[in-house]
């Protein structure tokens, strides 16, 4: 009979603390939204994308680890799976975004469509019905993939049948393809169309790199909390942390590479439909946010993550992971806020709304996590993963 590896019981504390904070802040934002709906919807979109990045980052990484194997996947799988089970919550939380179409997206205004030929040309894609229908399709796809990933993972716990592992691999292969396609369209709908003239073919890829980073940062931050408690306290080795740190580093680099490619090519081309993205973000104070991103979304974490002394220590890598979660917020802020404000502007709701949704999401995640053992009990790689790093040489 395998060991239980049950989730530490005080995980309930996370739910108990995070939920009230989230609900109170959301209520405060709702009051703020009554007085300033445009600002509310922009802040809410920022918050929503920020949390969705962690959710879908978890979903994508579950599939990546099924396909790639590796010890990091076994150790983090249950945390990632719990993240992917919050997709129904994210679907519900999408409702305010749908209600805010008029505040958020100029292409939803008939007079703009009538006067702007560029927007009119895209009306077959950028219209309210299609926007809602597509969103429903995305959530059905994501939820379906997450549902079977979780269901079969539990089945593996019960039976240990190797066929289940193969089933999970096949689903992950197809699921990642589906994720790539739906995510690209979703980010086109929700973020790119904030400036309907603008387009960039790499945008979906930048975003998926960012989601991978969100997923890893969240999981490492969660491990920081969990590894102070049994059972992970005695199971997690510093070599496993170093592997996770390296993967986080890889996503920092991938995000930078794709973002820089977009910047260089649009800047050098300087075409009217493309440069509209960078022009507002390079003046009126917004350039400071861009510089902060270069420094703290790339340079500093990149340099820190090169060092084993940082990757191998739980407190250090955990703190860095939390900082990266925060800088993921800054990245989305830089995408969303300049579409509304000409001058650098930080509303209190830009901070309160992400904390609100973040609190609600974290509470749900912690509750979801409790339902299952903390490690996949009959994953064929479990024994190897548990040994990994606890023997001297390699």
């Amino acid at each position: 009979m395998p060991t239980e590896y049950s989730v530490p019981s005080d995980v309930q504390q996370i739910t108990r603390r995070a939920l009230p904070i989230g609900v109170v802040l959301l209520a405060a934002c709702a009051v703020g939204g009554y007085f300033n709906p445009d600002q509310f919807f922009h802040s809410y979109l920022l918050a929503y994308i920020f949390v969705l990045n962690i959710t879908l980052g978890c979903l994508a990484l579950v599939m990546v680890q099924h396909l790639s194997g590796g010890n990091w996947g076994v150790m983090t799988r249950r945390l990632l799976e719990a993240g992917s089970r919050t997709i129904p919550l994210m679907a519900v939380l999408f409702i305010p975004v749908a209600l805010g179409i008029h505040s958020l997206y100029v292409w939803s205004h008939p007079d703009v469509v009538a006067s702007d030929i560029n927007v009119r040309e895209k009306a077959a894609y950028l219209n309210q019905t299609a926007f809602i229908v597509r969103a429903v399709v995305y959530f059905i796809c994501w939820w379906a993939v997450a549902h079977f990933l979780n269901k079969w993972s539990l089945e593996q716990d019960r039976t240990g049948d190797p066929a289940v592992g193969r089933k999970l691999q096949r689903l992950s292969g197809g699921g990642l393809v589906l994720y790539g396609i739906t995510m690209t369209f979703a980010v086109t709908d929700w973020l790119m169309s904030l400036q309907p003239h603008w387009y960039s073919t790499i945008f979906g890829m930048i975003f998926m790199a960012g989601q991978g980073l969100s997923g890893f940062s969240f999981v490492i931050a969660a491990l920081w909390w969990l590894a102070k408690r049994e059972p992970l306290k005695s199971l997690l080795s510093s070599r496993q942390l170093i592997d996770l740190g390296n993967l986080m580093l890889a996503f920092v680099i991938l995000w930078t590479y794709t973002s820089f490619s977009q910047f260089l090519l649009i800047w050098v081309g300087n075409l009217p439909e493309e440069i509209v993205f960078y022009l507002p973000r390079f003046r009126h104070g917004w350039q400071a946010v861009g510089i902060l991103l270069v420094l703290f979304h790339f340079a500093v974490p990149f340099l820190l993550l090169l060092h084993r002394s940082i990757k191998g220590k739980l407190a250090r890598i955990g703190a860095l992971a939390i900082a990266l979660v925060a800088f993921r917020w800054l990245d989305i802020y830089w995408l969303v806020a300049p579409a509304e404000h000409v001058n650098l502007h930080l509303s209190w709701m830009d901070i309160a709304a992400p904390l609100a949704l973040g609190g609600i999401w974290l509470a749900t995640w912690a509750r979801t996590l409790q339902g299952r053992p903390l490690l996949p009990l009959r994953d064929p790689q479990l024994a190897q993963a548990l040994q990994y790093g606890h023997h001297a040489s390699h």
Partner: protein
Amino acid sequence: MAVVERPPVIGPGHDFETVSKAISEIVLTRKTPLGWVFGFLMAFTFMMIFLMTATYLFLKGVGIWGINIPVAWGFAIVNFVWWIGIGHAGTLISAILLLLHQKWRMSISRFAEAMTLFAVACAGMFPLLHMGRPWLFYWMFPYPNTMTVWPQFRSPLVWDVFAVSTYATVSLVFWYVGLIPDVATLRDRAKSPFARKAFGILSLGWRGSARHWFRYETASLLLAGLATPLVVSVHTVVSFDFAVAIVPGWHTTIFPPYFVAGAIYSGFAMVLTLAIPLRAAYRLEDFVTMWHLDVMAKVMLTTGLILAYGYGCEVFYAWYSADTFERYMMWNRMFGPYAVAYWALIATNIVIPQLLWFKKVRTNVPLLFFVSLVVNTGMWLERYVIVITSLHRDFLVSSWGRYAPTVWDWATFTGTIGLFLTLFFLFIRFLPMISIVEMRTLLPQAGVKGKEAH
């Protein structure tokens, strides 16, 4: 609970002696296999075609090619990108997979690195020939001169000069450093005094002392670290060659990652194209196992899907841009005069490789060989479609035109294939095509504690 055993990366029943013998015998035997002689002669014939066309080109100038205005960049850039892309798999296998501790890389890294070197050599031919006066190639470098000639540093073509020459240098050094202990093994095993002398000089006095090994390992790791960014940077710069221009079909932000994925895709296809006949001809199935072929096929499937994603983004955003020229470019690609090339590209690069989802295909050697050839063709077509369809009809209808390669274009291209194969045949005859040293480390005996070691 059972620990999953990875499939073995080396066939059963080998020891240090049999490994050294199996690999070094291919080089040290006095009898050259007839197949080798035949293959070499074929390759050499094509290389002669290359030399002939190059000679004629120097006499007449680039007018013998099909290029003209508006398609001023034809086969030369298509073939340059194709060859340089192929090289990338070698660097990925030897550098990135070394840093990731992937043991399966060991048996294929040597000849994949050789493939890189020869592919880069073939790639380098095209810009040199396209210059018209290749003996003045050094004008591309920023050196003090009295002509006030200075490279335009804002042009990615100048970045290419540095990217590709760095790439060639690092690849050569990496490959040679890796060869040293093996060449020393050949020196020790060789019977003929000439071979002993030649391998002796090449082995740089390697005696296998602990200090030699320590330095060898350090140098390998450092070179792997240096080569890793090159896997991405070289093809990123190549993609910039196109993407910084505002020509529809060239100027698109997804080009850098899409070019890198395509390079690795074509590179792995070429590794399979070379590995499958080699392992059969020289009975190397114990070293290049089915598992190797399976993993390489999976890498191809993954990078191929990234490429498919790139094609999809190009099509969708061409429409979404609502830009007349972008939309026309895509329509022209699909239904214009070069539509056949576009749909052939979709079939060869996207549709047929989906067979690799099936394990039955990945482990069916002839079928896998076929898919690898299909992908090699597809990746060439991709560059052809990108270069030709974007240039031949751009903004002004009055300056539209057509492009057709001439017989000299084809002769130059097939000639470089001859050059590549000639170099490759010489390599497998005179140097160990699989790293003897690394294969020895895969044996169970290599772990001091045997199976207990981690």
